[in-house]
């Protein structure tokens, strides 16, 4: 474990109380959930659980390996959340308190409900099928009317309660859609199930040969599988995304009136509270500086890479990085006229537009449902005109509705989504929105933000030649003792790779150490005794660190963010696919031009406000382009939401991640092309699946209209088409090496 990974300031961690995260219900043991970083194997699991179990009063310590979360319960009043976090840290892992939130709890409940429905439907369809097969074979041999009626009644006894329970997800959604005056896939599904059951009961009462109980329940079973898979895929990615959010700074250090500091979730910080921000930490809230002077890096907020000076009275925004000494902030709500407020307003408007996108499945349903219902009505009228009896006409019409019940159609899109998003998950892309795949597939223009997207969020040295090799190695060793965010740029240059003995850090100022009887300093201009204003002005657009050996002239080290390692290839790859690439940045002209030049991007604009970005994206959309926005900063959030589809790196600010359709992990930019490849392939398979479902209907419907459908044919056709569609969906998984030129 390197120095950088250890807690910032041990004394501070001790004084932090994490008790805001503890769930203390009366009479029940206290509960805490922690997201744990660094678990790789089962051994880690045991290590953590044993370490926490050893604390006095802990009754349960269970690590969920799939979600990387540790649930702890304890009865001892004296034990605090801080003790538990420290126990985990002592075991060699980092733990972050976690606020599960209401949304996730609701999704967990829904997942359990779907699984219960699925189990009930599976049980029922197996048993009913057993009875149905007996009836089918009996019908062509020697079954007696009494036995058949008995079998039908037993089937009804199983099917009716099953449909009432396991059909709920479909009925509810159908009612919701109808209330809103719309048609979705669940409307024909619900209608088909209800009519199949109703007709079967009537047929049973009349002692007829055919009942469709098995079809109704099997339909529910197949569709529930699709729905459960879809839901568990979304839940898995959401859990992962929330862990990542917990690992970032969604916590704030709240300062009480007596000056004591406690760590609380951001949701518990209110307007007017005092919040403490140690040097090198990211601001979790917006506020006005109350105490302390220094610098903040607002690149996450505005995209600008040069740091900004702050003093009491300056307004600072969540997502900024505190580069200077510790600051005390007075929390402000989003006031009108501030950047945050402007971003929020633009974001709301853009999200509203996004909701107007209609899913492929819903578009199919809009076409499908009225057609099927008209067909059924035409069947009744047709047969009546031809002189058939009422009973025959209605039974035939209902058979049409049952056979066209969109079982394959209901699986066609979700099955592909599950397979494709599983493949994306493996390559480090987490989808936020279910229909994002369809929209990714249509992209013809990619707009990149520069800072933190094309470049890495971690700083690097821009002018490595300014220092001699020895000085650079020494500066690197000094940086090893520092928690300052910019020092991460120097750390890789340390040689030998160990800190200097006796190096002392003044938080937010710099580090000093005694090497060969001379004081060596690394830090801010003031710390290194730089008095000449012209020296500072020579490096206007950059973040700077200074290095000074004894009384020698201080050297400025320019810190910049390097391009992601494969940015050039990714941009070239996109262009080779005839995709237009643009860069929109909030940074100044110089750095943007440099990056655009390196990447070979001709269309770039710099110095844009969030409003300019959204306006440009909307202008592209008005030209009929399908824009994919890739960005990470607060200033990108509205454009991310306004774009046809959007992608954020995992290091993005919370608001931007929430506004984008997918999040990608890691330092590589490759996921941008992967997501396009996989989604285009997925989109074409969805199209094939809808085609297969249509072919199935073209064959089945005439048979049904002519009145030849028996329950046996219905069961075979339904399960056959569902299986074909599901098998085809499996092809969305890239086989071996992903095919780069997939259609």
């Amino acid at each position, binding site marked *: 474990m390197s120095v950088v990974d250890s807690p910032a300031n041990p004394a501070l961690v001790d004084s932090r109380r994490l008790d805001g995260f503890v769930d203390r219900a009366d009479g029940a043991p206290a509960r805490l959930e922690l997201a744990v970083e660094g678990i790789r194997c089962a051994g880690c699991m045991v290590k953590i659980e044993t370490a926490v179990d050893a604390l006095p009063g802990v009754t349960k310590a269970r690590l969920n*390996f*799939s979600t990387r979360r540790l649930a702890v319960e304890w009865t001892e009043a004296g034990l605090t959340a801080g003790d538990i976090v420290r126990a985990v840290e002592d075991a060699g892992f980092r733990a972050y308190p976690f606020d599960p939130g209401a949304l996730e709890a609701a999704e967990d409940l829904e997942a359990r409900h779907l699984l219960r429905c699925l189990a009930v439907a599976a049980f029922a369809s197996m048993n009913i099928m057993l009875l149905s097969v007996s009836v089918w074979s009996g019908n062509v041999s020697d079954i007696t009317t009494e036995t058949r009626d008995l079998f039908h009644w037993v089937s009804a006894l*199983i099917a009716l309660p099953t449909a009432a329970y396991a059909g709920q997800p479909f009925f509810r959604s159908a009612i919701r859609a109808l209330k809103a005056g719309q048609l979705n896939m669940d409307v024909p599904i619900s209608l088909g199930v209800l009519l199949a059951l109703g007709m079967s009961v009537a047929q049973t009462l009349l002692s007829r040969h055919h009942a469709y109980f098995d079809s109704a329940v099997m339909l529910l079973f197949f569709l529930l599988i699709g729905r459960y898979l879809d839901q568990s895929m979304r839940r898995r990615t959401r859990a992962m995304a929330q862990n990542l959010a917990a690992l970032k700074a969604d916590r704030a250090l709240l300062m009480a009136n007596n000056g004591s500091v406690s760590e609380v979730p951001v949701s518990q910080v209110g307007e007017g509270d005092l919040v403490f921000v140690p040097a090198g930490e990211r601001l979790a809230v917006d506020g006005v500086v109350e105490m302390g002077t220094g610098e903040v890096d607002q690149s996450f907020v505005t995209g600008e890479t040069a740091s900004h000076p702050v003093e009491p009275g300056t307004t600072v925004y969540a997502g900024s990085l505190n580069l200077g000494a510790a600051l005390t902030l007075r929390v402000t709500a989003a006031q009108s006229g501030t950047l945050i407020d402007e971003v929020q307003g633009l974001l709301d408007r853009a999200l509203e537009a996004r909701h107007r996108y209609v899913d492929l499945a819903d578009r199919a349903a809009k076409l499908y449902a009225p057609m099927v219902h008209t067909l059924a009505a035409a069947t009744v009228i047709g047969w009546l005109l031809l002189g058939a009896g009422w009973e025959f006409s209605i039974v035939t019409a209902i058979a049409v509705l049952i056979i066209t019940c969109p079982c394959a159609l209901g699986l066609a899109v979700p099955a592909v989504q599950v397979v494709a998003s599983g493949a994306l998950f493996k390559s480090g892309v987490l989808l936020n929105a279910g229909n994002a795949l369809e929209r990714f597939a249509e992209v013809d223009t990619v707009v990149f933000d520069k800072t933190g997207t094309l470049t890495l969020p971690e700083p690097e040295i821009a002018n490595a030649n300014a220092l001699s090799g020895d000085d650079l190695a020494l500066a690197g060793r000094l940086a090893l003792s520092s928690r300052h965010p910019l020092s991460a740029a120097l750390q890789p240059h340390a040689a030998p790779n160990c800190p200097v003995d006796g190096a002392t850090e003044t938080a937010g100022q710099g580090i000093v150490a005694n090497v060969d009887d001379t004081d060596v300093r690394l830090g801010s201009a003031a710390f290194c005794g730089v008095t000449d204003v012209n020296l500072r002005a020579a490096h206007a657009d950059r973040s700077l660190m200074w290095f000074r050996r004894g009384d020698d002239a201080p050297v400025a080290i320019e810190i910049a963010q390097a391009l992601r390692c494969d940015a050039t290839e990714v941009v070239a790859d996109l262009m080779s696919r005839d995709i237009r690439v643009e860069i929109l940045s909030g940074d100044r002209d110089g750095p943007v031009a440099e990056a655009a030049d390196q990447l070979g991007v001709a269309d770039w604009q710099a110095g844009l406000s969030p409003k300019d970005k959204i306006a440009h994206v909307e202008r592209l959309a008005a030209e009929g382009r399908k824009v994919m926005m890739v960005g990470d900063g607060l200033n990108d959030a509205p454009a991310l939401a306004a774009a046809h589809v959007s992608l954020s790196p995992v290091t993005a600010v919370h608001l931007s991640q929430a506004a984008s359709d997918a999040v990608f992990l890691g330092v590589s930019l490759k996921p941008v092309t992967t997501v396009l490849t996989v989604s285009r392939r997925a989109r074409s398979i969805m199209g094939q699946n809808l085609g297969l479902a249509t072919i199935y209907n073209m064959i089945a419907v005439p048979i049904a209209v002519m009145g030849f459908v028996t329950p046996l044919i219905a069961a075979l056709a339904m399960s056959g088409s569902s299986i074909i569609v599901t098998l085809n969906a499996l092809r969305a998984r890239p086989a071996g090496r992903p095919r780069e030129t997939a259609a």
Partner: protein
Amino acid sequence: MNVLLVLIPVALFLGGLGLVAFLWSLKRGQYEDLEGAAHRVLLDDDLPPERRSKD
């Protein structure tokens, strides 16, 4: 054919038993951490500490 009157309830009961067992395991949270369960079965934490293998 009267034997059916016995066999059908028996078949349904056995199937129902499976269903109840599944719902019970679901309620007990046995499907919450499938990955972890796969690893836990290999842990020898039921042995006395001195016999545990070093990892």
